């Protein structure tokens, strides 16, 4: 037997892996190896305990040298796990790595077959198929593409900030794009951080300033990525810089325009303070906004609404001339090699749990609102004054609002137990109120987290295990009059409790951003139905995506706290640095290509390609596949009506021989 092109005799080596008892427990591996030795072209066959181990790989190398093997079959686990390992071993032994074929007799055989005889027969069938296919394999070469060392980071919360600073420190050029007028994200709104009770601003704002002043970072706030072209190493990204109406290069953040605004009093709900405070049409989101540049909201500014404002802000700015009512959105195009998405989360909207009375009872708050309420630079200067003007003497904190709930979100939001403890501590510290936590389970895994829970227990905060049924103003007893009554089954005591309180705090869960699906499409990555971006592997590739060169970090990947977010941000930066410092990316050669003479120019394939790898060359009237973008999914190959697309490693002859092999049980 010789290879398809007659390049000499086939010398196939077959290796059957035991994988401990994973395979050997169900498959008679010795029998499979013995059988493989009888197949045409096979000159050597062995079974071995762990083929992926160093001795296993050494065996392959030694056999290539000694037995002059020119094709190799490994019957073991899924190629997803070890194809890379075995191709590598073959390459080290001097054989082209694409002359190796893996056969999955673990996931697709041993683990899913009850009967030992049947499992052994199936393993033989699969090995025979691989042996039949291999003569058609040709040596293939990997392609190398250079990597542009500039990086795009999308989202300027703590994740984006940390990634950007890490990359900038390594000397890489970073574009940090943020859609809000300032970076800082949700963390900037927090008062303290658990469990250490560090002031969030104190640990965050130095990093924000560092971003602003770092020569390697270009910071674009009020900006959205609108278009992404290209591929790993060579992305072309279009960013829309929305008009701020204040020139960033001229404004010094002196705030005199704000003081001079024709609105003497701030009148409009202030986004940063969750609408609990007021701002003017020209404003700074918060004192440490970065960049410290005023912004004009055209929806509330009189000049934009009527064109007849006295423009006292412009007068106040005087010679600086930073205010520009004519400013337009500006499109910027940048070239980067890699992308980190750190677009964060959206807090659950408690209007979807009407039984807790948010929006109906004014003293029901979300946790993020309370963060602002207890913050010294918040709307009440850190005094806990409720919407009715009073200070609460009793507070109920309801956990798992929009988390672990079949009716809203099924997942645990991971941070709510801990931030509820933190808020309980802060509310007690600020007001001396009695605090009641209503929880399903307390989830406090994390360094010094459970100790913090213990501290709260010692502080005399009450904990009631039970899901809250409702918050109501329907009273039954005199002590409930004028209060909000929290009704919950106390599942430890075994009865229904009614706890009257002045203030209710809803520990709202974390959701994916409302526009997560749009961002997903823009960057061609995957996103779960819940709105969180999908990592390439939940354990082993947690910040990679299925699109090379695009990484994810922080809560856009799933709910997580600040330490985990920062860890991921660092990891994403490291992954990016690995690509940049390698200088180029290797591309697998399992790509498709057009047989130009046979292409009829029907364009069927163009629309089908999920990776935008196929374009239509108008003057030639032929399709063309960009091998750098092609992921080798095979969709176009199968769809082509004239059969004029071929794919490396999936040639017709290879596939048909494999099928014949499976079906030709002797």
């Amino acid at each position, binding site marked *: 037997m010789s290879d398809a092109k007659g390049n000499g005799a086939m010398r196939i080596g077959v290796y059957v892996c035991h994988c401990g008892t994973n395979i050997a427990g169900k498959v008679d591996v010795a029998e499979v190896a013995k059988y493989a030795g009888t197949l045409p072209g096979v000159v050597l066959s062995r079974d071995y305990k762990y083929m992926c181990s160093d001795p296993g790989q050494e065996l392959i190398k030694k056999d290539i040298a000694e037995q002059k093997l020119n094709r190799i079959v490994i019957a073991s686990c899924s190629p997803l796990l070890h194809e890379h390992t075995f191709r590598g071993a073959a390459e080290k032994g001097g054989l082209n790595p694409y002359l190796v074929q893996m056969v999955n007799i673990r996931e697709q055989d041993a683990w899913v077959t009850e009967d030992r005889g049947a499992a052994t027969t199936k393993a033989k069938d699969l090995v025979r198929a691989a042996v039949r296919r291999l003569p058609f394999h040709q040596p293939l070469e990997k392609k190398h593409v250079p990597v542009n060392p500039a990086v795009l980071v999308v989202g300027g919360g703590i994740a984006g900030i940390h990634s950007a600073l890490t990359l900038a420190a390594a000397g890489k050029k970073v574009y940090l794009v943020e859609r809000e007028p300032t970076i800082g994200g949700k963390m900037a709104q927090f008062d303290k951080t658990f469990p250490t009770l560090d002031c969030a601003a104190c640990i965050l704002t130095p990093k924000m300033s560092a971003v602003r002043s770092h020569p390697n970072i270009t910071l674009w706030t009020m900006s959205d990525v609108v278009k992404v072209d290209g591929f790993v190493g060579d992305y072309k990204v279009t960013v829309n810089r929305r008009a701020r109406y204040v020139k960033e290069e001229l404004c010094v953040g002196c705030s005199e325009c704000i003081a001079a605004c024709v609105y003497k009093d701030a009148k409009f709900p202030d986004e940063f303070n969750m609408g609990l405070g007021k701002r003017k049409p020209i404003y700074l989101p918060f004192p440490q906004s970065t960049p410290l540049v005023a912004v004009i909201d055209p929806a509330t500014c009189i000049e934009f609404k009527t064109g007849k404002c006295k423009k006292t802000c412009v007068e106040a700015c005087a010679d600086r001339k930073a205010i520009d009512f004519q400013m337009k959105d500006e499109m910027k195009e940048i070239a980067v090699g890699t992308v980190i998405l750190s677009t964060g989360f959206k807090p659950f909207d408690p209007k979807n*749990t*009407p*039984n807790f009375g948010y929006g109906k009872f004014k003293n029901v708050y979300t946790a993020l609102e309370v963060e602002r309420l207890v913050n010294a630079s918040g709307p009440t200067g850190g005094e806990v004054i409720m919407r009715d003007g009073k200070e609460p003497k009793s507070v109920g904190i309801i956990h798992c609002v929009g988390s672990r709930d079949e*009716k809203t979100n099924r997942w645990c939001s991971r941070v709510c137990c801990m931030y509820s403890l933190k808020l309980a501590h802060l509310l007690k510290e600020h007001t001396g109120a009695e605090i009641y936590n209503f929880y399903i389970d307390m989830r406090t895994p994390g360094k010094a987290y459970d100790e913090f829970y213990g501290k709260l227990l010692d502080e005399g905060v009450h904990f009631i295990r039970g899901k809250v049924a*409702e918050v*109501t*103003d*329907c009273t*039954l007893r005199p002590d409930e009059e004028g209060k909000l009554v929290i009704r919950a089954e106390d599942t430890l005591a075994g009865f229904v409790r009614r706890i009257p309180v002045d203030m209710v705090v809803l520990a709202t869960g974390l959701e994916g951003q409302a526009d997560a699906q749009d961002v997903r499409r823009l960057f061609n990555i995957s996103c779960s139905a819940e709105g969180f971006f999908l990592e390439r592997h939940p354990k082993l590739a947690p910040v990679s995506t299925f699109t090379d060169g695009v990484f994810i970090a922080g809560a856009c990947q799933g709910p997580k706290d600040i330490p985990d977010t920062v860890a991921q941000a660092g990891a994403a930066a490291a992954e990016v640095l690995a690509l940049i410092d390698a200088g180029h990316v290797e591309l697998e050669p399992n790509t498709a290509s057009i047989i130009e003479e046979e292409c009829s120019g029907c364009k069927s394939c163009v629309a089908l390609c999920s990776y935008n790898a196929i374009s239509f060359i108008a003057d030639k009237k032929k399709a063309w596949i960009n091998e750098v973008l092609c992921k080798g999914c095979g969709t176009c190959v199968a769809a082509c009506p004239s059969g004029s697309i071929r794919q490396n490693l999936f040639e017709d002859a290879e596939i048909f021989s494999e099928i014949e092999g499976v079906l030709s049980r002797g």
Partner: protein
Amino acid sequence: MKYSYFPGCSLKGTGRAYEESLLPVFKALGVDMTELDDWNCCGATAYMSVDEVKAAALAGRNLALAEKAGGDLMAPCAACYLVLMKTQKRLEEYPAVRGEVGHALGQVGLSYEGKVKVRHPLDILVNDIGVEVISKKVVKPLKGLKVAPYYGCQIVRPYATFDNQENPQTMDKLLRAVGAEVVDYPMKTKCCGGSLTGTLPEVGVSLVHGLLREASRRGADVISTVCPLCQFNLDCFQDRVSSNYEKSAMPVVYITQLLGLALGLPMKELGLHRGVVSVEPILAQRELLHV
């Protein structure tokens, strides 16, 4: 649109004011409705907890008849609605129950494919007919009448097929469409006591009291219901509430009675005289009485 109407035993007995008002209202709205021929007791909530399979067979017979008749099956009584829905789900989800029920139905020459949609009148009024259509047909708006919408526990739990489970809105919408003033009534899905008024009267009456008291404290003139048992409990135990707790005289009517009034249907055809606590004085006070 064609519906089979499943009255259940209440609408022919204690809850007859419900049927008396329901039929003319649907007729006035141009809905084709035929009483299901040869229907039987739904088994109510009690039978389900005694023997699930036999209860499913009993209720399933009605579903089989409805499937033969064609069209959706309207069940106005909250208990009938829930039992029929529950049976439908059991038959869908449990092949063993489906087998046994199928066998039982086969004995009397019936079969059931699972195609019937069980519908509540609120669902049909809001989603099939539409509040705009209804509001256009109003000749006597219920101006000034303050109504507490009371849905009871069964029509949105456990299956919330047509309304919000925590804060149902369909009755609120209908009441507003006919010009009534809807009172914010947080007790709208709380238990009326069910059969506890008979078996553990002190518990049942205390629940009735909570519902009446809250409606009265929020300024309601009447409570509007969609369940014969709720209506019965709230209406008939007010003397007990008055003697055990505080004086209570809150009229409790069916939504269909109020709709009929607003559509200008003759009062005597709406069973408005049947309440233990008479609704007529408050209607007179709000100048809503007509012949």
